């Protein structure tokens, strides 16, 4: 292996900082951990070769403090910065400043981040690249039904163009309801946002969230490593991820993979990234967005491809050419459960606390990624993710059963966790049959509550 970086600063915390330290160590690269003052006892600080306090607890003063992070990199002699996920990972200005300050940004170019960061521009770019996007169109205040229905068939969604939060939003299921719904939406948009402009798009009912892992080098070679199915989510927060998806055929995997490659190539993408799609019940897929960074659920793909995505990301950022091809045959089945310090019986409210007792599951097929340890005090300033438990089996059934077995062994005392949710949800018949969509968890929670 050629020498890459000498010393990488990790501009993150928690389990992903630990994950990146492990990758660096295996590559023979030194690591610098940054931390806020409340994170002084955090595991990533203990594991790194060097650590530096960059500010007080609030993220804006520490993990989002670009000047402090760049200054820390300069002082500690780092030659590259890994942003992890969240915080500054998809901040194009940060990526730009990192490079301008003479460090390598371990991620795509600032231009790629920017291109995918603007959702309207990204949608246009994807359409041009031949990537399916949800059929839709903008209407100005004067538009009526006739020109719309031809292009977007019900069920469709009317959204205020300027809006958000459900204001000015209408679902139209029958053609004859369109005019009245449009008028209502336009009036609501007018009063809420001062503009009658609305956006019409096809309403994707009971769709799944399927994402494709893409990998690209700096020389234009782009491949994909199959999908992850992240349909088990609540309010866009993923709770369970798996690969392969229980519903994809090899043919569909190939088509989605090709679309993902086209999407990444369209923005000159390099390193690792994820193209998120919605997949409808009639197996049509539509571009949702691109995550221009490593993802929380990347280990799912690692388990079924035997590829270390974080090491690969670092090597590609350093300029190594990509020496592998797309993988459309995945090895076995992998599932991830996100164990958050949240009380799922109280609307998943985040909880602080101290880990009083900890027993980790182990044995065949189990992988644990965590930054917690016995005695660890969980700060309430950050993301509530405590641990990722992964189970790999020779097939989906074995992976699920193995995950249930691991959840049975897991002991975390001192703070409520989503493990209580997972223990129940993984027993759900629809989940076991793979018959779910992104709204399923909400419906399941409603039905188990009553």
């Amino acid at each position, binding site marked *: 292996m050629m020498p890459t970086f000498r010393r990488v600063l990790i501009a993150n915390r928690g389990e992903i900082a630990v994950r990146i330290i492990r990758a660096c160590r295996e590559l023979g690269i030194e690591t610098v951990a940054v931390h806020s*003052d409340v994170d002084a006892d955090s595991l990533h600080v203990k594991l790194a070769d060097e650590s*530096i306090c960059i500010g007080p607890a609030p993220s804006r003063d520490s993990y989002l403090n670009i*000047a402090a992070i760049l*200054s*820390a990199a*300069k*002082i500690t002699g780092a030659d590259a910065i890994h942003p992890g996920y969240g915080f500054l990972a998809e901040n194009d200005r940060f990526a730009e400043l990192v490079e301008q300050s003479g460090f390598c940004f371990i991620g795509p170019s600032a231009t790629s981040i920017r291109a995918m960061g603007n959702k309207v521009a990204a949608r246009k770019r994807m359409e041009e690249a031949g990537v399916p996007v949800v059929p839709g169109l903008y209407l100005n205040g004067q538009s009526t039904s006739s020109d719309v229905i031809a292009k977007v068939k019900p069920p469709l969604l009317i959204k205020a163009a300027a809006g958000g939060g459900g204001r000015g939003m209408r679902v139209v299921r029958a053609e004859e309801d369109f005019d009245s719904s449009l008028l209502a939406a336009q009036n609501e948009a007018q009063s809420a946002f001062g503009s009658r402009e609305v956006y019409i798009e096809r309403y994707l009912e009971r769709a799944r969230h399927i994402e494709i892992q893409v990998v690209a080098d700096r020389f234009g070679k782009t491949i994909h490593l199959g999908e992850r199915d992240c349909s088990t989510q609540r309010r866009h927060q993923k709770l369970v991820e798996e690969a392969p998806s229980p519903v994809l055929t090899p043919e569909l995997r190939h088509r989605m993979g090709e679309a993902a490659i086209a999407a990444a190539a369209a923005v000159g993408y390099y390193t690792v990234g994820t193209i998120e799609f919605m997949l409808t019940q009639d197996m049509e897929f539509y571009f949702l967005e691109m995550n221009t960074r490593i993802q929380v659920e990347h280990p799912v793909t690692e388990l079924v491809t035997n590829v270390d995505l974080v090491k690969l990301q670092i090597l590609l950022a350093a300029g190594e050419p990509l020496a592998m091809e797309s993988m459309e045959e995945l090895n076995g089945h992998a599932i991830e459960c996100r164990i958050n310090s949240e009380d799922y019986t109280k609307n998943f409210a985040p909880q602080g606390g101290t880990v009083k007792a900890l027993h980790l599951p182990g044995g065949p097929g189990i992988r644990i990624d965590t930054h917690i340890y016995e005695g660890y005090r969980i700060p309430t300033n950050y993301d509530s993710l405590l641990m990722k438990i992964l189970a790999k089996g020779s097939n989906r059934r074995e992976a699920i059963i193995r995950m249930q077995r691991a959840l049975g062994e897991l002991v975390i005392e001192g703070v409520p966790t989503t493990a209580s949710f997972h223990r129940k949800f993984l027993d759900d018949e629809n989940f076991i049959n793979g018959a779910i969509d992104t709204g399923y968890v909400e419906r399941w929670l409603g039905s188990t509550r009553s």
Partner: protein
Amino acid sequence: MKIDMLRLEALADMMEQRDLVEVELADGDSAIMLELAPPRRGRKKLIDDQVEDPGVTVTSSRVGIFLKRVSVGDQVAEGGLLAELRVMDVKYRVTSPASGVVEEIFVEDGMGVEYGQPLLKLDPGSSPTPRQE
């Protein structure tokens, strides 16, 4: 409730002597609860150790390069310049929180410092001593 400070003092004394960490007394509508702070618990005769340090330690509020602007023995006024911190290309002033004499400088000129790192110590009361360098 009438707070009998003398009796409270006596109670606190007894707690320390007896190594009690918590005392609760309730009498009709009145209730008193005394709890010893965790650092004091089980650390009985440490009182003499806690020598009051009259000095004022100035810590770094940024991550950057420490640029020394005073020397040990210098007299500084409140708000006077003690050092600068260079964060990338920007320099920030570190000013004195009080008037006094620079007693000790913990960081060498030109070295990197992290957030919260002690930079130097002032003796707020003292009068200037001859320069030591």
